[in-house]
C-alpha cells in the first residue's frame, strides 16, 4: 500500500512529503526522505523491543504489560521527587499527559531541551525572538546564514526544502540568487557549499557576533584586525552582505548553544538580527534537533507557563533551569525515581547524572533498547510516532503538523500507556 504525504518523524525539519510503501505490515520502500529518514523507516522493524522487560538479579526477563504498568505506578507513587524526562520523540498528546502526571505527582518534568536549545530559550526570555515560518525563507530569502549548524549532516533536507536549493516565489533563479554564509569552528560539509565561510576560533562566537553588531551599527573603526581568527576585512564584507540582503535568514545550531558563552551567544545573535531589522528584513530560527522537541516546549508552555524544566513540588509550576533541569536534579541526587519517555539520557548526560539514574528506580517507555536501557529497572516498548502512532508534532519554526500512523505493529502508543498510568495515579490520589 502506498502512503502519500507521510511526515518524517526524525528531525525537526518535519518533511511531510514522503511516500512510503507498506506491504503486509512492513515498510518496503521510502521515497523523498534523506538517509536519516530512510534509515528510521526502513530499519525500524529490526530494532524494536518486542515486549516489556524487567531487570532481575539474574538479568533481563520479559514482563507482562500489566505488571509493567503496575510497577511503574508503584514506583511513581512511592517517590518523593519523581523526575519525568525526555519527551522529544513522541507526539504532543502524550507530552500533555506527562505534564498532567507531573502535576499530580508533585514531580519535575523536563525535556531534552535542557541539553540542546535550552540556552536559546533563556536568551529568548531576555530579548525575544524575531522569527518566521520556513516558507518565508523559502519564498523570500536572498541570504541564508548557518551559524554553528551543519544541516547537510544533521538536517539533510533543510537546504533543499526550505533554503538554498528550493524554489522561491520572489526569486527567479533561487539557487543563483541566494547567498549562503556558514560560520563554524571547523570546515563542515555545509561550509563546502557556502558563498562565504567564516572559520572562527573555538569559543569565539560571542566576539564575532559582537564585532558584526558593532559594524552594523556603524562602529567599524573599533574592530581590530582579526576577531577570534576572522579578519576584519571578512567581517566588513559579511556585514555588508547582511545589510544589502532583501531578506536574510539566520539559522543557528548546537555549535553555538552548547559551546562557550552558551545563552549569551544566542542573545548576541538575536540582538544582531534585531539590529539588522533596522536596515532590512532579517529573521532567526533555531535548528531544533528531534522532530518534536519544540512540541514539548509548546505543550509545556500552554499548560504550565514554562517551556521545560518545570518543578511541581510546591503545587504549582516553578521554573529555574540549572536548578529544576534534569541533569542538575540527577547530579544532585535529588530525584528518587525517574520515568524516561522517548529519549536517551544515558547517551547524552554527564556521568554523575547517569550514574544516579542507575541507582534509583528508573522506568523507560521507548520503542527501542538504547543506552538508557542499561540503567533501567523496566522498559515498556510502545508504537513509534510517525510509523504506528499518530499525533501532533511542531516543526522547528512552530508549524504544527499531524504525524501519521501508516501501519499497525500491535504496540500500544505512548498515549495509551501514559494515559493508563495517569489514570491509575489519579485513582490512587483520589483526584
Amino acid at each position, binding site marked *: 500500500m502506498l502512503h*502519500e*504525504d507521510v*511526515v518524517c518523524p526524525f528531525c525537526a525539519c518535519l518533511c*511531510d*512529503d514522503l511516500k512510503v510503501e507498506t506491504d503486509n505490515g512492513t515498510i518496503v520502500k521510502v521515497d523523498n526522505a534523506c538517509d536519516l529518514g530512510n534509515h528510521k523507516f526502513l530499519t525500524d522493524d529490526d530494532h524494536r523491543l518486542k515486549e516489556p522487560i524487567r531487570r532481575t538479579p539474574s538479568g533481563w526477563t520479559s514482563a507482562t504489560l500489566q505488571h509493567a504498568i503496575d510497577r511503574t505506578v508503584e514506583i511513581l507513587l512511592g517517590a518523593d521527587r519523581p523526575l519525568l524526562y525526555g519527551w522529544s520523540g513522541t507526539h*504532543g498528546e502524550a507530552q*500533555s499527559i506527562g505534564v*498532567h502526571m507531573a*502535576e*499530580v505527582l508533585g514531580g519535575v518534568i523536563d525535556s531534552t531541551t535542557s541539553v540542546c536549545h535550552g540556552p536559546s530559550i533563556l536568551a*529568548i*526570555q*531576555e*530579548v*525575544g*525572538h*524575531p*522569527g*518566521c*515560518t*520556513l*516558507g*518565508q525563507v*523559502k*519564498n*523570500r530569502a536572498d541570504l541564508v546564514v548557518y551559524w554553528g549548524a551543519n544541516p547537510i549532516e544533521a538536517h539533510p533536507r533543510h537546504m533543499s*526544502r*526550505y533554503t538554498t536549493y528550493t*524554489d522561491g*516565489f*520572489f526569486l527567479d533563479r533561487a539557487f543563483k540568487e541566494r547567498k549562503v554564509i556558514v560560520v563554524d569552528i571547523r570546515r563542515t560539509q555545509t561550509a563546502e557549499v557556502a558563498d562565504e565561510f567564516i572559520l572562527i576560533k573555538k569559543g569565539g562566537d560571542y566576539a564575532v557576533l559582537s564585532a558584526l553588531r558593532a559594524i552594523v551599527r556603524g562602529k567599524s573603526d573599533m574592530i581590530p584586525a582579526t576577531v577570534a581568527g576572522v579578519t576584519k576585512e571578512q567581517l566588513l564584507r559579511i556585514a555588508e552582505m547582511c545589510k544589502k540582503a*532583501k*531578506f536574510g535568514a539566520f539559522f543557528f545550531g548546537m555549535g553555538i548553544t552548547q559551546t562557550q558563552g552558551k545563552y549569551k551567544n544566542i542573545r548576541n545573535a538575536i540582538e544582531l538580527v*534585531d539590529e539588522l*531589522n533596522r536596515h*532590512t*528584513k532579517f*529573521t532567526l530560527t533555531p535548528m531544533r534537533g528531534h522532530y518534536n522537541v519544540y512540541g514539548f*516546549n*509548546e*505543550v509545556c*508552555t*500552554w*499548560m*504550565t*507557563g*514554562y517551556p521545560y524544566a518545570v518543578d*511541581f513540588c*510546591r*503545587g*504549582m*509550576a516553578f*521554573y529555574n533551569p540549572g536548578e529544576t533541569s534534569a541533569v542538575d536534579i540527577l547530579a544532585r541526587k535529588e530525584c528518587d525515581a525517574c520515568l524516561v519517555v522517548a529519549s536517551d539520557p544515558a547517551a547524552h548526560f554527564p556521568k554523575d547524572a547517569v550514574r544516579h539514574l542507575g541507582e534509583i528506580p528508573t522506568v523507560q517507555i521507548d520503542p527501542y533498547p538504547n543506552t538508557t536501557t542499561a540503567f533501567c529497572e523496566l522498559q515498556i516498548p510502545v508504537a513509534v510516532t510517525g510509523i504506528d502512532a499518530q499525533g*501532533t508534532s*511542531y516543526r522547528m519554526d*512552530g*508549524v*504544527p*503538523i*499531524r504525524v501519521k500512523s501508516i501501519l499497525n505493529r500491535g504496540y500500544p502508543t505512548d498515549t495509551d500507556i501514559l494515559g493508563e498510568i495517569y489514570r491509575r495515579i489519579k485513582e490512587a490520589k483520589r483526584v
Partner: protein
Amino acid sequence: MSELLIRHACVVDPVNRISGEIMDLAVRDGRIVESVSDRAEVIDAQGFLTMAGGIDSHTHICGTKVNFGRYMSPEDMRAGRTLKKGQMHSTSGYSVPTTYGNSYRYATMGYTAVLEGAMAPLEARHTHEEFMATPLQDTMANVLFDGNWPVMEAVRDRDVKRVAAIVAWVLTAVKGFAIKITNPGGTEAWGWGKNVTCIRDPVPYFEVTPAEIIETLIRANEILRLPHSVHLHCNNLGTPGNYSCTIGSMDVAPDLNKERQSLYVTHVQFHSYGGTSWKDINSKAHVVADAVNRKPHIVIDMGQMMFGKTTTMTADGPMEFNLYKLHHNKWSNHDVELETGSGIIPVYYSRKSIVNSVMWAIGLELALLIKNPEQCLLATDNPNGSPFVKYPEIIALLMSNPYRQAEIATLPPETESRISLPAIDRELDWNEIAMMTRAGQGRALGLRKLGRGHLGLGAIADIAIYPLSIGAIDPSKEYTRVIEALRLTRYTIKNGKVIARDGEILSNRNKTTIWVRPKIPEQHRMDHDPDFIRNFERYYTVRMSNYPVQEAYVPESTCIETEAVW
C-alpha cells in the same frame, strides 16, 4: 434529562426586554425552558444580578503568538500563579495566563464563550490544541486573511467569487469561525520589513490596496452567509493621527446584512488618535463615535486600555516592531508564509504618561459617545489594552461618572485638554452593560438566533449570577461594590451545569468549539482548482493534504453550515 431551576433571579436580558425583574429560570438539558418538574435541582439566586453568560468577541488566549507570549515571559508567568486545588489545575501567568488560567478566570467572571482574535491558518492546529486545553468556554477563532496570497491575487483580478471560494476552503480546512483582517496588506509588506500607511497604499508586488482587500472580503463574507461579519484590525494601529484612516476604512464598508453589522472594527481605542506625533497626541474618539453613530452597519469594540503591566501581541508585525523601538524591552516576531505575521512585546501603561492617559480616556469616550451599546462592545483586546480581569473596573467606569472623575484627577494635568472624557456625564445602566458584554456579542457574532447572549426560551443555559442586588445599590456612587461583585460570580452556569461557584471551579470540562463550513457550488471549490493546488504545493512548506485540521482537534465540535448565495 437534567433539570435546573434558578429561583429569585434578578434578570437583565435586553434581548428579551427584561430589565431587572425578579423571576425564576427553568433549564432542561442545557436550554432555557418554560418550566421544569419538581425533581429539578434548585439554586437560589437570592435576588442577585443574573445575565446570560458573558461573551468575549475579541481576545487572545490560544495559539502560536499567545503561547510565545508565555514562552518568552517567565516574569509574567510568575506574576500570576495559583495552586492545584480540587478539580483545578495549577495556573501561571498574569497578562498571558496558561490555558487553564484563562479558562478559570473567565469562568469565575461569568464568561462562557470567547473568540480568539487572530489565528494564522497554517498554525490553526496549535490554536485548536489550546482550545482543547481551555475547558470551560466555548471557543471560536478568527482566521487571518490580511496577507493571503491567493486572496490578494483574486482581489487584484476583481473576482469576488473566487475570494469567497478561497475563504470557504480555508475556513473549512482550519475549522475557523470568521474572516479576520489585521493591518490588511501591511503584514505582507512586513515580509520585506515594510508596511502600508493606510487603505490607499498598494501592497508591494500584489498591487492591491487595503481598501480593496477590505471591501472584497466583506462582499465575499456575505456571499458565504457567514454568521459573523468581517472582523477588521485597521491599518496604522497606535499612530498619532490614525483616526482618519480608521474612518476611511469604515467608509469602505458596504451595508449588506439586515441582521447584523457588515463590518466589525476591533480595538478602536488604538485607532482613534489625533495629533501628529507622540508630543501632541489627542483623542479623536468623538469623531470616530460620530461616524459609528451614523453607520448602523458598523460594530466596534473598545479595545480599552487600563494602566498597569501587560503584554501586547498581534498579527500586526510591523506595528509591534515600531512599538519595540519605543519601549526597548524585548521583541518577538513571527511571520507566516503566504498568510500573515505577528509580533509580541511586553509593555507597561503608566498613568504618569500623557500618551497612556489619553489612550485610557479614548476607550471610555468611545463607549460613552456611541449611542447604541450594541455598536460598541466591551473588550480590551486582551491582553493588549489590559488583561481581561480588568473588565469589572471598566464596567464600573462606564457606570459611574464620579469614579471617572476620581481617576482623571490622578492623571497628568496636561491630559485634560486632549480628551473629552471629563465633560461626559453619561452613566450606563445594567441593560446597556448587558448589551456591551453578552447581548451585543451574540448579535455581532451571528449567534443570537442560536441561543447565545440572551436567556429567552430555547436559549443555551449559559448563565452568570453575580452577588449583587442591583436594586439596592447606586453604581454611580458604589462603584467599588460593582467591581467586587463582577469579579467573582456566585454561580457560573454553562449548558445548565454549574461550572463555578464563588471562585471555585466545579467542572472539568464543558465546552464546544464553534466553526463554520460554507457550502459553495462544487465546481468552484478550491480542492479542484488546478491553479490553487499548484501554487499551494509550490510555495507552502506543508503539503495541501496535511494542511487541514483533522477532526481529532475538535472533539467537542459545533459546525455551522452555511449555504452560499452564488
